[in-house]
Every structure is written in C-alpha cells, then in structure tokens.
C-alpha cells in the first residue's frame, strides 16, 4: 500500500471543520482506489487528530514520517497546527499539500510545501476588491483575533489602501466570543457602508444575527470561514444577502466541481463546504502527483507537483515558485438559505507572492 498522511482536527474547537475535511480527503482516496489506485497499489490515508493545536501537530507529523513512513501528506487542519507540522515534513523531505490553512509562512517553510487555497493576504485583498465592486467606500473592519483573521485583515487593509477605500473603524474579537453587543453598538454608531468581518461560521453566525437584530443594514462581507451551511442555520434570516469570498463555487459549470458536489452528497448525505472541497482537492492533487511518479515520494513527487497542473473542484490549479496557487476568488452570496454565485474576482491583485518577501 501507498500511505498518505493526513493531520486533521477531530477533537477540540475545530472538530466540525475537521470532520468535513476528513470526509473530503476520504472521498478523494476512495475514488482513486476505485479506479485502481496508483501503480497497481491501493492508497491508504493515515489519519491523526491534531486538535488544531501546534503542540499536538508535532508528534503527529513525526509519527507520520517516522512510523508510518508516508510518501506524502495532506493538511486538513488550521494554520497553527499546519505550520508546526510543516517543519517536520520539510526536514524529512515529504511533500505536504495544505488544503485550507492560509497562513503565509507555511509555504515559506520550504520547497516541499504546497498550498491549494489562496493565502490569507490574497483573500483579504479580494475582499477589498469586492467592496469596490459593490460600489461602497466606508468600511467597518471586524477582525477575528487569530492568525486567520490577522492575515485577512492585513491583506484587506493593503487592498483598501490601494483602492482608496476608507476604513471607518477597526475592531477585534476573540475566537471564543459569541456575544458582540458592544461591538455592534459601536459599529452602528460608526455607520459604515459595508462591513468586512473575518470569522468562522460559529463566530460569524452570532455576529451577523446580532448586527441585523440591532438594525445594522449595511452589507456584510465574510470569507471562507463562513463557508458552511451551519452559518445559515445559526444566523437564520439574518444571513440573507451576506457575501463570502471563498474557493468553492457551488454554481460552477466546471465538471470537476459538479461531480465533486454530487459525489460528496452521495457519499456523506450532506452538502460539501469549502473545507471539504479544499481537502478533497489537496488530497487529489497529491494523488495525481503520485500517479506521475508511480507511487514514489520525495524529490520526484515534489517535482511532479511543482510542474503539474490540476483540474479540481476549486478550479484549475498550478503552483508558482513558492508553491502557492494563483486562482480566482469566488464570491458567494446567501440567497434562500444557501450559497450562490455572486461574482468572481480576478486580476493582478490576487497574484500570490512567488518568493519570500524580504
């Protein structure tokens, strides 16, 4: 068997995303195995729980490398744990494909790192472009205080400055906050045209519903963290009209996306979200690479990934020198309790850096 490592938060605060990620990755492996595997061998996904914690991720990665001797690995986890694991894989020269952790440093760790989603700054800049496309100017900026939120905020502010947007007020909140009374009052008094709020569905749901309940009517822009049916469930009617910048376009015409959405639904009985799609993608990309190397890992696999191009549910991907992908950012909007295509953002502002910034 050919072993692929997979670290994912199955317990702890990120367990819900971890579950989606796991389903996505399993689906990719199952499909590959159904088609005969790689070089006549079955693929095996070796799964470890990292609790989305850096501390847990290190022994997990070490085990994948030393005990399981995986040929390549996929991160189905958040930025913190992924960053910690990255160093180990890099040192062991095991290619590591990251699904949806958006911290910039991950790919900087070394040349065995690959990321299939847009890094944080890029998504932030996309947010700023969306504001402009919506014809708005005065932005209320709400930032989740973790690496995800910070990276987005940095990109957003950079983009906003370029595009001449005005940031009317900037607020931060913590991962565990669910009650935003004070923040909502302040935003209301700032009276922005649009609100750019980073968060995960479990913070964004309450935030959006509390904003709407307090009579704030400005459009709200979220990101891939919102991208889950749970968001609509929590925010209820308040979620209508919320935009999210993400990597999964549910209304895509692309065959890859359509089949994935259908297959995922068939396999799990629930609708795929961004995390599932990204993890599926990351796993598939790694498998594609393995096919090219006939199941060999290491340098060969790295080169195969670097030079390949992949048609995935989240678009056509190819890695640049830094092993980031350049792709369009999908804007989805909530309509009748589900995400639909609003627009697609593209352009030079979305180009990821191709070498480490000084």
């Amino acid at each position, binding site marked *: 068997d050919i072993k692929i490592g997979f670290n994912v938060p199955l317990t702890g605060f990120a367990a819900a995303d971890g579950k989606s990620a796991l389903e996505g990755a399993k689906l990719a492996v199952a499909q590959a195995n159904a088609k005969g595997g790689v070089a006549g061998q079955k693929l095996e996904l070796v799964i470890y729980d990292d609790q989305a914690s850096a501390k847990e991720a290190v022994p997990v990665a070490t085990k994948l490398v030393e005990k399981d001797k995986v040929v390549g690995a996929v991160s189905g986890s958040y930025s913190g744990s992924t960053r910690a694991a990255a160093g180990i894989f890099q040192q062991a020269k095991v290619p590591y494909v990251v699904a949806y952790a958006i911290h910039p440093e991950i790919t900087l760790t070394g040349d065995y790192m690959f990321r299939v989603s847009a890094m944080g700054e890029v998504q932030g800049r996309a947010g700023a472009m969306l504001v402009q496309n919506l014809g708005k100017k005065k932005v209320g900026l709400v930032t989740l205080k973790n690496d995800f939120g910070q990276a987005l905020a940095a990109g957003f502010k950079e983009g906003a400055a370029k595009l001449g947007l005005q940031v009317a007020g900037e*607020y931060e909140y913590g991962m565990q*906050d669910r009650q935003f009374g*004070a923040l909502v009052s*302040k935003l209301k008094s700032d009276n922005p045209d649009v609100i750019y709020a980073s968060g995960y569905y479990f913070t964004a*749901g309450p935030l959006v519903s509390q904003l709407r309940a307090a009579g704030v009517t400005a459009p709200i822009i979220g990101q891939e963290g919102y991208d889950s049916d749970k968001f609509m469930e*929590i925010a209820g009617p308040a979620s209508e009209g919320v935009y999210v910048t993400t990597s999964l376009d549910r209304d895509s015409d692309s065959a890859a996306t359509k089949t994935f959405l259908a297959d995922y639904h068939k396999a799990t009985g629930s609708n795929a979200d961004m995390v599932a799609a990204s993890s599926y993608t990351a796993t598939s990309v790694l498998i594609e690479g393995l096919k090219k190397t006939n199941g060999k890992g290491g340098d060969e696999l790295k080169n195969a990934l670097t030079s390949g191009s992949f048609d995935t549910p989240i678009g056509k991907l190819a890695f640049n020198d830094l092993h980031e992908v350049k792709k369009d950012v999908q804007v989805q909007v909530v309509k009748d309790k589900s995400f639909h295509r609003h627009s697609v953002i593209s352009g030079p502002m979305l180009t990821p850096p191709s070498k480490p910034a000084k």
Partner: protein
Amino acid sequence: MLFLELTAQGLVQGSIYALVALGLTLVYGLLRILHVAHAALFTLGGYLGVMVTNASGSLALGFAVAMIVAGIAGIAMYRLCYEPMLKQPPFVALIASIGLYIAFEELFRILFGASGLSYQAPPLQQQVSLFGGLQFKQAEILVMVSTAAIIGLLGYLQTRTRVGVACQATVSDPQMAESFGIRLRQVRDLNFFVGSALAGFAGVWVALLNNLVEPTMGSVPSYKGLAIIVLGGMGSVRGTLLAALVLGVVESFGTIYLGKLLDRNAIAFAFLIAVLMLRPQGLFARS
C-alpha cells in the same frame, strides 16, 4: 447614546456572567472548591433548551427541562465527584472537576456534533426600543430582569433566613453543623441544585441570544465565573451579582476602546488584578 448602549450591552453580558458565577459562588462558598465542571451544566442547559424547544415548540418547557435536568445533574456531580473528595486538598477536586468538564465537552460533541445546534425558529428576537431609542432584543431585557429578580431573592434567602445561616454554618465546620441538626447532604444538594439550575437557565439564555449552542460554549464562562467570584469577594450573592455586572460593563467598554491593546480576556483579568492589588479582599467583600 453610544455610552448608554455600551453600558446596556455590558449589563446584558454581566447578567449572564452573574447567573453562571452564582452557582460557582454557592459551591465555592460551601465547599471551597473551584467547580469548573459547573460550566458543563451551563452547556447542558443550552443544549436542552434548544432541543426541547425545537421538539415541543415551547420555550417555557425548554427552560423548565433545562433547569431541572441541570439541577439534578448538579446534585449528581456533587454526590459522585465532590462528596468523596471533601477530605482531600482542594486542588484534587479542581483537577477532577477539570477532567469532568473536558469529558462533558467531548460527550456533547460526540452526541450532538461538533458544530453545535441552533433553534429552528429562535423565540424572543423582536426588537424593543426603550428609554428613547436604546434597542434591545426581547431576550436581552428578559435576561436582565430575571437575573436581578432571582439574585435578589437568593440574596435574601442567604442572609435573612434560617436556611441561609444553616448553609453558612456548614462552610465553617461541617461536622459541627451536623451536630446542630443540619443535614449536610440536604444543604449541599440544595445548593448544587439551585446553582446548577441557574447555570442551565443561563445556558438557555445564551442559546437564545446567539442562536447557537456548542460543546465548547462553557469554557469562557468557566474561567470568567471564577474571576467574578473573586472580584465579588467570594461567597456573597450580592457581591457576585455586582461583580458580574461591573465586569460585563468593563468588558463592553474595554473591547471597544482598549481592544487594540488587549483582548477581551486580558482586559477582564487586567481589571481583576488591578482591583486585587488595591483591594486584596475583592470589590465587594465585607472587610
């Protein structure tokens, strides 16, 4: 206007803190145990509130079930966990309590899913405008009113009645309290029941305010609650209420005006430490 709104929001938050902290205060006051697992009952209350309301359509039933079940679970925790540990140093119970909390958190996750539950149609969400334009959700007003009422009643019971004196006696010297006709178990069961039912009550409110219950929803109240009982001077119902409200308001203003310097938890604890340096016995303790 903004000032009033921030204050009002602080009070709403403070009321929730107060309801949770009260159970901690009762337990701390009674057994000198930091009852971290209390927050699991808060979570339990939230889950029951959502599930019963979704199933039956009646919020009142949701409240009733949440409070009663949380209360009974509280008694069970006392009997199974704390009673056998009373003779041990307090950190033994603390660690056991933390273990229990982790286990509960995981149990909720395994039983009800990691992503939490929401109301199908969340009740009490209408807007009400009070005092010339302050906007509230109905739920927010009811939280404040019911907290004030319940705590007022408890404060009276604790200081003015024979039951109250009996409770306090068990704190100083449980063995002697028994020798004066006090049934220790009854007193402790009662305290755990009341404190836990209030935690369940708070859980339902939080579920209503956020329309979300999650396995991890108890972690913030668990340590904020501990901060509050210290601020309140430990043991007194009135002190706990005041401390909770003050903390709510401090956080409310703090997150807006100090949010750039410190996060919400740090603001709360910076405040706590500052208070303790000036008044080592807590904000509202009898000296």
